[in-house]
């Protein structure tokens, strides 16, 4: 099962111009039922606020953090460990906020 991550132009993102090192963080997910539709939607909405490219990775499978289908396809359950990667001028901040979203979970 391979999901190719695609850039917004649909041609892949290898032609990205950023040469800054991407921020990478390890996160343990705390959402009660994992990242199913609603939490995934919240995650994606938050991710889309940033300019940086966001990658979510689980078991070496990498998806676009701004794609709800991608995020849901990782089927991330509570307690699982994933990697967050953000590449771009606001990458650091994006990583920080998304990490805190995943870690703090939602209370419902």
């Amino acid at each position, binding site marked *: *099962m391979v999901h190719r991550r*695609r850039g917004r132009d649909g041609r892949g993102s290898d032609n990205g111009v950023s040469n800054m090192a991407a921020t990478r963080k390890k996160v343990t997910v705390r959402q009660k039922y994992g990242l199913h539709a609603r939490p995934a939607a919240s995650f994606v909405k938050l991710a889309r606020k940033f300019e940086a490219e966001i990658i979510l990775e689980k078991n070496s499978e990498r998806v676009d953090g701004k794609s709800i289908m991608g995020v849901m396809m990782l089927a991330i359950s509570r307690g699982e460990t994933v990697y967050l990667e953000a590449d771009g001028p606001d990458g650091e901040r994006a990583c920080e906020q998304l990490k805190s979203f995943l870690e703090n979970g939602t209370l419902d």
Partner: protein
Amino acid sequence: MALGRAFVVAPRELTVEQREIAPAEVEAEQARLARALAFTRDEFASLRDEVKKHETSIRAEILDAYMLVLDDEMLTEKAREKIREEEVSAEYAFKTALDDMLGVFEAMEDPYFRERAVDLRDVGNRVVMNLLGVAYRLFEDLGENSILVTHDLPPSDAAALPRDKVRAIVTEVGSRTSHTAIMARSMEVPAVVGASGVVGYVRAGDNLVVDGISGRVIVSPSDEVTAGYEKLTRELLEEKKRRARLAELPATTLDGYRIELSANIELLPELEAVRRHGCDGIGLYRTEFLFLHRSDLPSEEEQLEAYRRAAEASFPHSCIIRTIDIGGDKFLSFPEVARELNPFLGLRAIRFCLKRQDIFRTQLRAILRATAYGRIKVMFPMISDVGELRAAKEILADVRRELEREGRFVDEALEVGIMVEVPSAALDADLLAQECDFFSLGTNDLIQYTLAVDRGNEKIAYLYEPFHPAVLKLIKTTADAAHRNRIWVGVCGEMIADPKAAILLLGLSFDEFSASPASVPDIKIVLRTARYVDARYVAEQAVRMTSASEIRAFLARELAEMGVPAFRCQW
């Protein structure tokens, strides 16, 4: 519970033929897809706005997620690619692109994720229907008093459901965790999900009884059964209305004695019930639930956020935050906290906090900072002597100074109280009352410590006796000591859900009752039908009696005489 006529929705299988297109049509086909996606998105947006007018969150959030799916690059690009490279129609391209992805979901182990595949198929069907120009008028012919019988009720259909006409929902598929079930609950419509074969069995127009509580659907019930259910439905409706009215009314006795009737909560989602049942704020926020089932500690910010929300939801009433009661039957999941042989008598509650001051101070910082957002009171659990209270207050004062140095706002009038749940605290109530602002009597623990009965042990459960004369003596001692020292006293155990206990504690002049939100209406009815002077008399008699059975019989008799409804006696 509902009665009505079946409105049967035949399964909709959208068959989309593989239709090939000419290379010249590719552009036009791409444009059709884009239009259909935009159109569907608008449909969802207006549904969402409609839903948001009537209710909070869940249905609207689901529709939000759908809108994200519609402009998901991964999905739409795949569909565009199929049109471009395979030269197929937009509907075929979109449907197959979606099916490929759903296959992945359906293969997942986690049932929660598998359910989501069903939901996403719904999004896809909606787009395909718009592409095919199939008008979407599912509920147009729905009559009054309809019971919807369908194979599945995808969320976008559920969102379009006319609430005034649909009395109940029956589906063939779905489980307790499916969105259908979640949404039915949020709409307060009775629903039976997972009734396989029901669509083939029931004919349109059949009379149905749907009992959402037991999960039963009765087809063409006899007149007798119908009459029985009609009566029950009317009664439930009356009861619901009465409760809604009751929520607006204060917990005041017939002769004008006002009791603060507040809620015990563990988690924030309960705030909805606190509001709905008309509770006077929160009398006990069990904060340890923020700490359980996780391997790390909640940060100051995370705690602040939770306390702020509780305080805001309680306003203008107060929100009493109890510092963590870890130990006993609740354990942190990190390993430093070793299992004990006798945890209820061990390193628990305030004892744990005084030992692990790092955890305690973080919590106190969050509580003090949250005082900016409402009327917060802080309460220490399991205080057993004056020394412990002083030690806890000293740390609180130190944390307050620290915050003030940082220039943060802290409510100057913050009340500090204690749980009276250890017999020594009840016996020393006079001393403790001089050093705090209120008492809250924790009957659950007070009973088990006084009678030496583990309340979780079934073999001796019969010994757990709230009306034991010794327990009543301690309760009275505590209440009297509080009032002698001019502080207020509340009670926050399950005991008061029993009308006998409610009358007794009213008679002992308690100022506040705090119970689970769902028991608040019942307790309010008891208080509103009683007179304080009668309760005083009853309590004076009861505390002089020699056995629990005598006390119970006496209280039951008196309640009946007073005309207080004695329903839901728990003990």
